[in-house]
């Protein structure tokens, strides 16, 4: 049977939305409007400020902070959501985190506070580095110091873990809209063939923006969240196979454990914020084919490939061949990205991921890069130098690679590669940086590669310096 009404757990209580509710209403708009829960705030409606942070509670107890502004009602069907109003104890008393934040001068204007409290509540269980946890929450008043103090002392609570229903196919209709939630790959492919114009929605960190910020109301959406094949994540001896709809957060956790992927993990930890990584996916990064997609240069440097499927069959394509141009990829109208294969770098390979941006955390790259070098008898046997943000699409710098081929990895060789790079890339000037700066930085990253390779004893960048 197909579900036709959106239902989810909200602060521990089952909510069933009336038929005809637009499935692409943002969770934030619903909470603040019909939900009558205005504690969750709208600060930017573009998933950046975190004032709208709520927590997705998984059946295994995991807590994922997400931006309610980018999350659509159809996505939260069958899930459990907790908002700032849902943290009080059974007796109505404030949660210890709410008390601690208040008593430590962690609030001034208080507008960002509910979002920060929810991030803290998730962080108390999930742990990890504090700035990584807070990167998705902006505060304009406090200077963060008191908030960081509270984050340093968080303790997990024993709140009950929600019991979630088994995934079930669903189709939500509203005037002029239909929102499909298939639960098998076959059903997904059939829907895709029938609705080539539909939005393919996984995390929605990009498409959600079109609803939240641009106020679009898509006619057809196919949601990928219920399709198990797109959520598989497997580590194998020769690499990692990641379903296209696996959120970055899961990928990051795996990269941190898997030999060879640590540099990619360092980069992923800077992709968006916890809120974004809780929903955003590699499949989405590939689907939008953005010239500055953070994950694309590493995929190119690793020689990753994508598996595409349609009702007609399945094909495997190198990421380098999948990316075709400015926001253009090789996906046929009836195809979906099913998974991404990331070959494991050879233990002897030099593998480095770089990202230059105005702000370290939660920024879009001015220049992104990933370098992988295979040395044989001290000489460069093969080089993969991939860049983002310096041309119409993320791409390898073939001339710079050629300049390194067969040479010792010394300063001269990287200088030669830096010179050659000037004819590989064609950056533009915009608010993130001028063309001249982008070139200078891309070349600087090659010089930094030399430092990383030759002086592993030294911090190679400002983030690596420990005061």
């Amino acid at each position: 049977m197909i579900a036709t009404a959106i239902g989810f757990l909200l602060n521990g209580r089952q909510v069933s939305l009336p038929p005809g509710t637009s499935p692409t209403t943002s969770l934030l708009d619903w909470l603040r409007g019909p939900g009558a829960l205005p504690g969750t705030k709208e600060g930017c409606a573009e998933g950046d400020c975190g004032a709208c942070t709520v927590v997705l509670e998984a059946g295994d107890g995991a807590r994922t902070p997400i931006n309610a502004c980018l999350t659509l009602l159809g996505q939260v069907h069958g899930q459990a959501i907790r908002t700032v109003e849902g943290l009080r104890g059974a007796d109505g008393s404030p949660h210890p985190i709410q008390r601690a934040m208040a008593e430590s001068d962690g609030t001034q204007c208080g507008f960002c506070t509910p979002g920060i409290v929810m991030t803290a509540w998730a962080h108390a269980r999930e742990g990890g580095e504090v700035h990584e946890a807070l990167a998705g929450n902006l505060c304009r008043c406090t200077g963060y110091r008191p908030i960081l103090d509270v984050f340093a002392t968080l303790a997990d609570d024993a709140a009950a873990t929600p019991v979630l229903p088994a995934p079930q196919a669903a189709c939500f209709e509203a005037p002029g809209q239909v929102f499909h939630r298939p639960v098998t790959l076959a059903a997904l492919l059939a829907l895709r063939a029938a609705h080539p114009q539909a939005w393919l929605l996984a995390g929605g960190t990009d498409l959600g923006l079109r609803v939240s910020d641009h106020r679009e109301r898509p006619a057809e959406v196919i949601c990928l969240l219920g399709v198990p094949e797109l959520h598989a994540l497997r580590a194998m001896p020769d690499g990692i196979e990641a379903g296209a709809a696996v959120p970055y957060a899961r990928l990051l956790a795996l990269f941190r454990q898997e030999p060879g992927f640590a540099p990619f993990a360092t980069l992923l930890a800077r992709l968006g914020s916890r809120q974004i990584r809780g929903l955003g996916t590699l499949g989405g990064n590939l689907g939008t084919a953005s010239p500055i997609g953070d994950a694309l240069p590493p995929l190119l440097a690793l020689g990753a490939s994508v598996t595409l499927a349609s009702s007609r069959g399945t094909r495997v394509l190198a990421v380098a061949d999948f990316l075709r141009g400015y926001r253009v990829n090789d996906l046929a109208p009836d195809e979906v990205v099913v998974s991404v294969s990331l070959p494991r770098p050879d233990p002897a390979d030099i593998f480095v991921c770089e990202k230059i941006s105005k702000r370290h955390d939660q920024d879009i790259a001015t220049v992104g890069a990933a370098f992988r070098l295979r040395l044989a008898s001290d000489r460069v046997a093969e080089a993969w130098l991939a860049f983002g943000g310096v041309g119409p699409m993320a791409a390898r710098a073939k001339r710079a690679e050629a300049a390194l081929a067969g040479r010792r990895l010394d300063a001269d060789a990287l200088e030669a590669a830096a010179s050659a790079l000037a004819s590989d890339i064609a950056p533009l000037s915009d608010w993130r940086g001028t063309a001249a700066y982008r070139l200078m930085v891309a070349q600087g990253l090659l010089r930094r590669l030399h430092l990383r390779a030759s002086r592993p004893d030294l911090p190679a960048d400002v983030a690596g310096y420990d005061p």
Partner: protein
Amino acid sequence: MKGAGAALRHDSALKHTTGEARFADDLAEAAGTLHAALVLSDVAHGTLLSLDTEAARAMPGVVAVLGPRDIPGANDIAAIGQAEPLFADPLVEFAGQPLALVVATTRDAALLGAAAVRAGITPLEPVLSIERALELDQHVVAPQTMARGDAARAIAAAPRRMEAEFRAGGQEHFYLEGQVAIASPGEDGEIAVVASTQHPSEVQHVVARVLGGACNGVTVTCRRMGGGFGGKESNASWVAAAAALAARHTGRPVKLRLARRADMIATGKRHPFLYRWTAGFDDQGRVLGLQALLAADGGWSLDMSGGVVFRAITHALNCCDVADVSVTGCAVKTNTVSHTAFRGFGGPQGALLMEDVVHRIAAACRLPPEEVRARNFLGAAGKGEETPYGQKVEGDLIARVWAEAKRDSDWDRRRGEIAAFNATHPTLRRGLGSMVLAFGISFGVMHLNQAGALVHVYSDGSIRLAHGGTEMGQGLFVKVAQVVCDVFGVDLDRIAITATSTAEVPNTAPTAASTGSDLNGWAAHNAAQTIKGRMAEVAARRFGIAVEAVVFADNRVWAEQAGGNRFLEFAELAKLCFLERVSLSSTGFYRTPDIHWDRATMRGEPFFYFSYGAAVSEVIVDTLTGEHRCLRTDIVQDCGRSLNPAVDRGQIEGAFVQGMGWLTCEELWWDGQGRLRTVGPSTYKIPGSRDVPPIFNVRLLEGAPARSETIFRSKAVGEPPVLLAISVANALKDAIGVPALDLPATPERVLMALRGDGEKIARD
């Protein structure tokens, strides 16, 4: 009893963290509430020939489309002086200027309707840079000069001479809560406005002006703002006026809440500045003569640029003295959003001048900039202790805050350690920088230095406090309540803190210029003191003692002394006063004494007192990419005898980080057509938690009560610490060995400075 001086937390803190604190957009909407959306120009300069609203009017849910012809009063939302239209008519002067307002049954319908309005604009050549506007000699604030002595002669006679030019960018306020107002029509043409505003009285004036009514028909309230920082001083008024116009037309409540993008495009920001200066100096780095031009980008209209220029000029020498000086300030007119108040209000921009002078001269003399600055301190050997406009400054406090910051930061040891690091690391460079500030407190516009309060004591002994100040997170409400606690000798929980309302306290100044607690604290003090006097008389009669012998303390009223045998509970006395028909309600009023300013001669004593502070910051820079990080900051800030050290520390930390954003990562970027392209947090980067220095030592200057008669000898704290962030920019200069750095010092500017000027410096 926890009165003045106690480190009490923000009165709304627990409501903030539980989500109970209601901001304007959180209030339950009255039945029938309509929503409005602005139609904004996407042309920077032109003539509006037509506005095609037919498609919008035909859209579902759209109730009205309003333009300049629909305004019953004046199409004028100016805070000061010349008319500034609410809706362009017919001249369009910046990309983002409001052209019309669409009113609909839902916010989405209003936004879709606004997108469907087609403006026919004949473009004119836009002026998009300060340089171009200077060439054209077009200003919103004409050049004005503050001079003392003969700068030209002193420069000519000096052993050495230098000329320079640099720039500082603007800054978006990025209050987390965007601009919002809800206007509800009442009887007899009345309008009630709930607004997120730092200036309810101005909202009242502007709404009355636009509707063609009187102030007594407009009531404006504001319980709290989700941040203001100056951005809700004048800009809140026109947002409210637009909502009020729609409410008047439709007869229904109307909410206008700007989406972040619209807010960033249509509302003013911190003024960008261009600086040109010539200095004469000696080999010891003493500045002997200085001529400077500080040209602010005022944007398309005056707004409050006059005050910003005033503060920039009066703070251009900051903590330093130059005997012969001539500083000219102006605000040019460009086809850009009208720049407005932003925490510091031209003061931080002014102070940048002297820092540039000090750093370039230090490099030329091969001296540490700290030494050059100290040799030029007000009160240093051979230097005066009076500003060029004739106000005495406390040189001893300038020397003291610097000495303490230098000591706290372990300056000398770290200098050596940093030099050793820089000598060995191939690409990373660390740097140490400092800042010392002297910031004048009072509104530059003399008449704004006034405040009112209204205090009621109820017969059960509970107290209701209202004053003209607004709460934007800065902790004003709790500070003023602490003053009232102190007067009555009662605990804070006895006092109800209420929304700011023009119905309770009229004719108020904006909550701005750091003066909130100075002014409103005194006004509330005076109101409470009046009631206390009346209560004391009743108590004196009851006790049979002299009025002077009645003591208010510990929630009781005592005969002779607190803790003695005879007392009345505060509530008992309140009841007694009621029974004896004694008024328990009073207004209070305060105006700052002794300040004056002569605009013709540019002289006077415009500030009630100065606030002092000093900071040392350390940074690390990657010379390959320009990326940088602040590693440590030590701050000593003068708050006089702090009213609330917890709140004050929060202000210092927050102001510093906000200032650091202005000077490092926050960059406003307009395209060639004058359209702002950094219109949300995804493109405009304010500091995140990682950007805060991992070692961040903040200390209030001890044992330095204000020498002026401020409220409980406290000092203002909202704005001065913004200037301390200049220590980060100075540390970047130190790290890269280049004394000249345009701001904000993004990784790109740092790298360019390294590659360009760096080579030039190395050659001479």
